[in-house]
């Protein structure tokens, strides 16, 4: 009798065919998450279609579809492919990239407000671009009336300095101790140093150089080309593949440092690799397109509120929400002062700030 009763405590015995209530409920919950993913894909495609349709030159929806599916690149086809789609694809990739970096940074830094920008990456990139404009004489990227001498050098400097900031943080954390706290503190210090250095460069810059620097710092999708979209896509693919392979590790790290170690996670290694890859992705984005704020916070937080913190679903859901936000923000930027186009970085800050406050109140009230 006693051994019969004790059978229920043999938790690893294979007794197939028995499916408990909690397992069934969980499978239903997973179906809901998958449905949400499907819904997000539909919304993203719909946003893309609206964004392709909206523009100063009206092209019928049927024609747009024809140009897309036949790769038609003459007449209006050129506008569809080289003016609108190149920008929208950029928005999708950047939105997804910033959001996925935010998810991983928030996990490895144990800080819900973390993003690669927290670590001073954007300040370093802005300093790099300003340094290039003023001391190398490269000018900035194409944005409305700002002149261009050599945009690739400016981008290269922005990238180099943002990766240099990442390297400095790694060095500081290696010297001290690789914990979330030391990384965040090192990031704040690095950010302050580069902000001060940027102010100095702005102080010595001429009026036109200053205009170039300010123009560079606006996140602007108008700078995109298919080559640059491809560059972001390739980086995103590598980084997201790694992150998806590590989704269980990130779930474990969310449960606390010791718990994660007890579950077999090398937390120090995951923290460093996660930080390097997130920073690399954001450095590529910031260097090409400038500073686009809040997407790295909003994407993950909205996704977490809707489908929870399991990184198996959180990573792809955040990417889709980040992409939808940026496509929508760009649409707003194109329409409110049409035909003037407001850089998307301004729109994300304008709309993202209040939306983020709303989410905070809703979540923590």
């Amino acid at each position, binding site marked *: 009798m006693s051994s019969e009763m004790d059978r229920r405590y043999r938790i690893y015995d294979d007794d197939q065919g028995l499916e408990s209530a909690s397992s069934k409920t969980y499978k239903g919950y997973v179906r809901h998450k998958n449905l949400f993913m499907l819904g997000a894909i539909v919304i993203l495609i719909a946003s893309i279609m609206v964004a392709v349709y909206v523009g100063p030159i009206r092209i019928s929806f049927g024609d747009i579809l024809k140009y897309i599916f036949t790769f038609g690149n003459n007449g209006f086809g050129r506008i569809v492919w080289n003016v609108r789609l190149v920008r929208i694809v950029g928005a999708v990739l950047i939105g997804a990239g910033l959001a996925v970096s935010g998810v991983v940074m928030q996990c490895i830094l144990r800080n819900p407000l973390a993003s690669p920008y927290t670590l001073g990456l954007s300040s370093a990139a802005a300093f790099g671009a300003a340094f290039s404009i003023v001391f190398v004489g490269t000018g900035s990227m194409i944005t409305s009336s700002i002149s261009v001498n050599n945009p690739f050098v400016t981008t290269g400097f922005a990238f180099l300095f943002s990766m240099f900031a990442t390297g400095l943080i790694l060095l500081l954390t290696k010297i001290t101790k690789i914990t979330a706290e030391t990384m965040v503190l090192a990031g704040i210090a690095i950010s302050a140093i580069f902000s001060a250095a940027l102010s100095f460069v702005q102080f010595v810059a001429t009026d036109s150089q200053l205009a170039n620097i300010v123009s560079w710092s606006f996140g602007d999708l108008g700078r995109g080309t298919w080559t640059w979209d491809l560059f972001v896509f390739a980086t995103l693919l590598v980084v997201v593949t790694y992150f998806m392979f590590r989704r269980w590790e990130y779930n474990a790290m969310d449960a606390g440092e010791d718990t994660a170690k007890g*579950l*077999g996670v090398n937390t120090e290694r995951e923290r460093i690799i996660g930080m390097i890859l997130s920073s690399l992705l954001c450095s590529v984005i910031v260097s090409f397109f400038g500073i686009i704020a809040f997407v790295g916070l909003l994407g993950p937080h909205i996704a977490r509120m809707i489908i929870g913190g399991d990184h198996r679903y959180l990573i792809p859901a955040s990417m889709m929400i980040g992409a939808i936000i940026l496509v929508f923000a760009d649409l707003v930027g194109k329409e409110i002062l049409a035909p003037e186009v407001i850089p998307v970085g301004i729109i994300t800050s304008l709309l993202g700030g209040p939306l983020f406050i709303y989410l905070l109140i809703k979540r923590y009230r």
Partner: protein
Amino acid sequence: MMFNANGIKFSYAGKNTLEDITFEVEEGDIVSLLGPNGVGKTTLLKCMDNILHPKSGLVELDKVDLNSMSRNDVAKNIGYVSQRGEVSRMTVFESVLLGRKPHITIDASEKDLRITSKVIDLVGLNDLSMKYIDEISGGEYQLVQIARVFVQQPKIILLDEPTSNLDPSNQHAMMHLIQKIVKNNSMAAVMVVHDLNLAVRHSDKFILMKSGKIYAAGGREIITPENIKAVYNMDSYVEEIHGIPIIVPKSYTR
């Protein structure tokens, strides 16, 4: 299963926290680590799971040095429940399922889900399984953490104050469950417990620690007023009621 700690020494910032710790744990053992605050019990548990690396000494599982095993292989054999887990936005089911991580290659299998469901059922978390863990109580979260370590399917489980947030009824129910699961699944458990009566009632072996060293180790016979006085600096009676020793504090001094 045989777990050995041989001459473990550990120090924080130049101060010796553990000195010459040697003991064995065998299959079926339920060992309580007893001693006052700051004596090195948590540090010892972390050294036993290779979360902290001893300055000297050897920690072996079935004669294999833990340092020669990968972090994931250690996790397949040794489970650890920390004193303070962090709360994330995961459901109770997902959080318990996380215990299968060392065994998961790509994604959770039917077997992983089955073990998780079984443990959730045993621990009594069925009604909460789809609640987010940031919406449940501290005591309920402690149950989640213990459930997670069972799901991990280790040979030995290390629990740091596993019942500190539970009410008396749940404390005894949980200790009883730990006993049942350990005995029926060829495991062993080592736990830090502050409630001496709870420890005496539900453990087979005891390690009394004082100033980073083992003061006494053995069965119930070492739970004497003299040893309690020496370790906790507390006078006490040890009475037997229905064959179970009950420790009653007499007075204490600082």
